């Protein structure tokens, strides 16, 4: 399945786009998504180790399973306030 990933801050800057698109197997987890993103977007390789992902606006773990309809976001370390 093809999933779209929202990008913010340094991740958006590195990719040059507000979204990334990658193919992952059905039933893929966030860990699979990480691996696919590194392949598709080498510019993110140095950053992905320090990001977490949100699925449907909640923080996910690497074990969280993904569905094609999920809203997925890449969350670099936050710095609001």
């Amino acid at each position, binding site marked *: 399945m093809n999933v779209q990933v*929202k990008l*913010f*801050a*340094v991740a958006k*800057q590195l990719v040059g786009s507000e979204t990334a698109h990658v193919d992952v197997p059905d039933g893929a987890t*966030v*860990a699979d998504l990480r691996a696919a993103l590194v392949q598709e977007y080498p510019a993110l390789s140095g950053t992905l*180790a*320090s*990001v*977490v*992902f*949100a699925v449907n*606006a*909640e*923080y*996910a*773990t*690497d*074990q*969280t399973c993904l569905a094609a309809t999920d809203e997925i*976001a890449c*969350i*670099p*370390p*936050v*710095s*609001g*306030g």
Partner: protein
Amino acid sequence: MIEITHDEIDTGALLRAVESNLAGAAVLFLGTTREMTGDRRTRSLVYEAYEAMAHKKMTQLAEEATRRWSLTGCAIVHRLGELGLREASVAIAVSSPHRQVAFEAGKWLIDTLKEVVPIWKQENWADGTCEWVHPGQPPSATRDPAVHPATLDAPPRRPATEAPPPPMQAEPSSLHADSQANHPSSSGES
């Protein structure tokens, strides 16, 4: 009152939002744009957010603080876009019957907001360079599952130096991405 805005924050509106006949104290915190970080001079800060999730997390924080400290009012507003020096990027107002609780809740709210709400700042330095501020803590998902909603049974860790919060139940782990350290180069707020 939970808002994400591109406009100047109306602090009076926050204080009015937490007014209550039951309150004996109201505390207003502002995070403002500081010029100097060490030897470096900031020209402006630019904030961006994952707005839907940021609003959701701010709402959860307000609900949790209200429950834990039995607040009579709680309001949080975060501003996005470019902010000049002295301008407020975040405002938090709380009210409670007595002042100690209001101070404690307000501190917890800003500290936790800075850890879990998906908002980012970019430093525009006076020398013309700019950079995103990303606290240098490595990620959580693989290292610290206790802070993630999928494993909510375990209370998340707290910094060892942090005093235990007042009477309460388990920490709301769903709020947390990780316990990120404040970034030393950040010139926004506290």
